[in-house]
């Protein structure tokens, strides 16, 4: 005997993600989820972006989810903003952050006194795209050392994001990398994507990125 079920396998996660968005609305903060491959420069990007936001009196916090060490959390904590470290396994760990780990992390903060909360997701272009974290804004970071075809290989990631940051443009003179081809490929997947090129190392492009992030509040 066959019985019809028709149940989404991510229903539990999606429901929690909805709860998180309700909390964000009630408490008046914006949740920004940053995703990329390992080594694209998510932490360095936050180290540039957060002081720029602090200068504009925007109160930030970070949920740090990159696996294995607390090294990233320590880098973020040096900026004197609240950090919640999601404890993943020391060896391996999970490939993404689900809404069920974001919710308790949020409760570690004084939500009333925050404007923007960043999630530094696990370095991976596949799984994090699949699991809704409850974020209001999704950002994908791709660096110039990664190859122009990344958007075509990971279309879901580039569909779920509203902002694409092309990082490490300071390395362009040393690379055979065509930034225009990358932009064309991003637009093939998501014609509405806001694209910003920058270098988290030199700070180039961060005025534009800061404005874009503020505009999403």
């Amino acid at each position, binding site marked *: *005997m*066959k*019985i*019809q*079920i*028709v*149940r*989404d*396998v*991510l*229903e*539990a996660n999606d429901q929690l993600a909805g709860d998180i968005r309700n909390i964000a609305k009630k408490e008046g903060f914006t949740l920004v989820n940053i995703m990329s491959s390992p080594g694209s420069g998510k932490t360095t990007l936050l180290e540039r972006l957060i002081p720029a936001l602090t200068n504009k009196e925007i109160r930030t916090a970070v949920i740090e989810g990159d696996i294995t060490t607390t090294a990233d959390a320590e880098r973020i904590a040096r900026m004197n903003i609240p950090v919640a470290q999601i404890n993943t396994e020391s060896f391996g760990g999970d*490939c*993404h952050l*689900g809404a069920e780990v974001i919710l308790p992390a949020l409760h570690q903060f004084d939500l009333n006194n925050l404007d923007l909360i960043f999630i530094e997701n696990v370095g*991976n272009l*596949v*799984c994090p*795209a*699949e*699991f809704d974290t409850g974020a209001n804004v999704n950002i994908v970071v791709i660096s110039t050392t990664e190859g122009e075809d990344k*958007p*075509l290989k*990971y*279309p*879901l990631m580039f*569909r779920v994001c509203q902002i694409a940051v092309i990082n490490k443009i300071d390395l362009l003179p040393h690379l055979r990398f065509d930034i225009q081809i990358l932009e064309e490929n991003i*637009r*093939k*997947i*998501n*014609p*509405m994507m806001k694209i910003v090129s920058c270098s988290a190392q030199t700070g180039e492009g961060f005025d534009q990125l800061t404005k874009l992030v503020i505009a999403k509040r």
Partner: protein
Amino acid sequence: MHELQIATNIISIVEEEIRKAGKTEDIEFVYFIAGKMRAIIPESLQFSFDVMKRDKPYLEDAELKISEIPIKIRCKNCKAEHTLNEPVFRCETCSSPEIEIISGDELYIDSIEFSDT
């Protein structure tokens, strides 16, 4: 790697449905629908399912049947519908970027089949 989490979710939903239906027969098939957009590797999901079903009552002999759904878009501008064979999310008829995905992002259990014996 997200296939492992998805397999785990499939098993817990099926277990819940078995309880709800008050069934004591073994499950023979679980019919699963995966849209192409979701980047599921069927072999990997199958493998994860087979690992996770071990020692689960009624599920030990269950087979996961995966159907993949192609990505279809509809143009908001000219209303044309297209099935995507390559990842270009634009209307093939009028090139408008204003499209909606009408199928291809499914990720659900359609049905379960109990063995009749």
